[in-house]
């Protein structure tokens, strides 16, 4: 089957700065893909390029195609994009406290998602469908409440219900649980998992939390400095990382041991546009040589590979 989402050669620029470069990424039907990387690596910008909601003066180039949509998403006009957003492609953002309109009842906000795309015949059925959606996220009876009457976790459940209202082919979640406390996180993740499973929607899940990726995703992409540096099945990448950055990232967020003194990746993430030429990681990499001044080629298949001149040996264990 062909991919639900296919991103090719995506780059994102603001004025003269390049924030994301040469990103290729595919998500198959019903597939759950994780997107990880330190803060500032370009994960959100990648997601926003796909849904076409980049901030003003930030521009995307390249190709983004969505199954069932006959046109290119990059550069599509508002009229066409608005027909895709919320229907075939939905997104859940990080901050639930401010994601809902404070002056509108949450039931109406959920119902609106269906009314916009006319996936229900009328207001009454939209309201019924919204009631059912809220019921399924455990908020039966929240139809008439306003956002301020709900907690952060409850609001995020509303946002999830709203995003899934039209059974999108692809759901993008940008750190949907980062702003929530741990007990609530599990519940939101559960809802997202159940939601996409019931609809056979594909999932692109952005997070810092490698444990979350390990539990919910089948495949993972590692971003650094606006580039995808490694990609592959979660099991492979997390047990046998090849890119030195992935290796560092894994070591820094040790999934198994409870040791609090984790090794960190030396140095800091450079500011946007300040990444070195060639391999973007070379200024922080212990294995870097002169060779790294050249952009490392992608090794392997698009679905499983890495871009590193001095990769970890294929069988090297995680914690060297």
């Amino acid at each position, binding site marked *: 089957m062909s991919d639900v989402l296919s991103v090719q050669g995506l780059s994102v620029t603001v004025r003269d700065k390049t924030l994301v470069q040469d990103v290729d990424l595919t998500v198959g039907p019903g597939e759950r893909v994780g997107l990880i990387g330190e803060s500032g690596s370009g994960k959100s910008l990648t997601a926003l390029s796909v849904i076409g909601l980049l901030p003003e003066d930030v521009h995307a180039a390249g190709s983004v195609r969505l199954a069932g949509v006959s046109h290119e998403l990059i550069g599509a006009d508002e009229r066409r994009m*608005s027909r895709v957003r*919320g229907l075939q492609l939905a997104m859940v*953002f990080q901050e639930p406290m*401010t994601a809902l309109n404070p002056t509108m009842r949450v039931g109406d906000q959920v119902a609106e*998602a269906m009314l916009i795309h006319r996936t229900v015949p009328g207001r009454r059925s939209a309201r019924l469908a919204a009631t059912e959606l809220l019921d399924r996220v455990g908020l039966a009876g929240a139809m008439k409440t306003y956002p301020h009457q709900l907690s952060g976790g409850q609001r995020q459940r509303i946002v999830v219900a*709203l995003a899934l209202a039209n059974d999108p082919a692809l759901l993008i979640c940008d750190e949907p649980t980062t702003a929530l406390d741990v007990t609530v996180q599990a519940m939101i993740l559960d809802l997202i998992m159940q939601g996409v499973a019931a609809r056979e929607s594909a999932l692109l899940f952005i997070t810092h939390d490698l444990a979350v990726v390990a539990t919910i995703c089948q495949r993972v992409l590692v971003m650094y400095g606006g580039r995808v540096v490694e990609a592959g099945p979660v099991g492979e990448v997390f047990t046998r990382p090849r890119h030195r950055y992935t290796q560092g990232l894994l070591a820094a967020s040790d999934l198994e041991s409870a040791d609090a003194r984790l090794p960190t990746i030396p140095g800091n993430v450079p500011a946007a546009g300040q990444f070195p030429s060639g391999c973007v990681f070379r200024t922080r990499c212990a294995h870097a040589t002169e060779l790294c001044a050249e952009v490392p080629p992608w090794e392997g298949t698009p679905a499983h590979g890495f871009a590193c001149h001095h990769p970890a040996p294929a069988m090297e264990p995680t914690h060297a």
Partner: protein
Amino acid sequence: MILRLVERTAVLLVSLAVASVLVFGFMAVLPGDPARVALGVNASDEAVAQLRQQFGLDRSLATQYVDWLGGLLQGDFGTSYVSKVAIGPQIADRFQVTLWLVVTAMIVALVLAAPAGTVMAARHRRISGLALSALSQLGVAVPAFLAGILLIMVFAVKLGWLPANGWTPPAEDPGMFLKQLVLPALSLGLVQGAVLTRYVRSAVLDVLREDYLRTARAKGLRPFPALWRHGLRNAAVPVVTVLGLQLATLLIGAVVVERVFVIPGLGSLLLDGVSNRDLLLVQDVVMVLVVAVLVVNFLVDLLYVALDPRLRVSR
């Protein structure tokens, strides 16, 4: 909700009481005896004494205040020391005129500011938005009376489209009423509109940056419908505040504009009162203006609650 209503009403009543003391007190501490002021410097002492007695000015200030306030509460504004005519009916008459003027000006201001401010915000990086900004900046700098004089020069004197001044009650001749209303309402409204535009612009800019607007876009609403459905009410809250505050400015503007356009409103009544040294009349008119401002701000407060459900939580 009920609690807020009670609380706001209490605040209104207290501010009304304080305002009445201030207005009365201010007139009382003005140098000179109101009776002598009314009669002029050449009046005989007997005449002055007689007037003082006739209007109860020989009583203590506290008694006079209570008497005045008690009268106001029953709709009795007292009798002018100068013309010996009842003040209440005059104020009622003039109030209507000013009300027409101020309300029309407010509508002009809103009709101008809401779309202009929104366009300025939505296009704040483009030429059209910047041009509108510059234009409104210019409007802010022009005082209402100057706008009035300019409008008279262009539309009344040069083009002869509209009367330069005068007032006809709407019941008498609606056509004439409208014609005469246009220029004064514009001179008040355009200037207020320019000021208001800037507030609308910043309110809409704030809303455009809100996450819920991005959510609305992610649902599939195009930029303008998203702003309309999800931004309007949120942006209205700060704008309504400014509208309430602007009312005071509009009333002051009306005093001057009524002079320029020879309109028999409260403003002209006030100025007449001042030039006739009719202190009670002045005191009453000022009180009416203050009450109008306070009541409008009370209503604005209630409007907030209607606009923003977050304010409806009972504490």
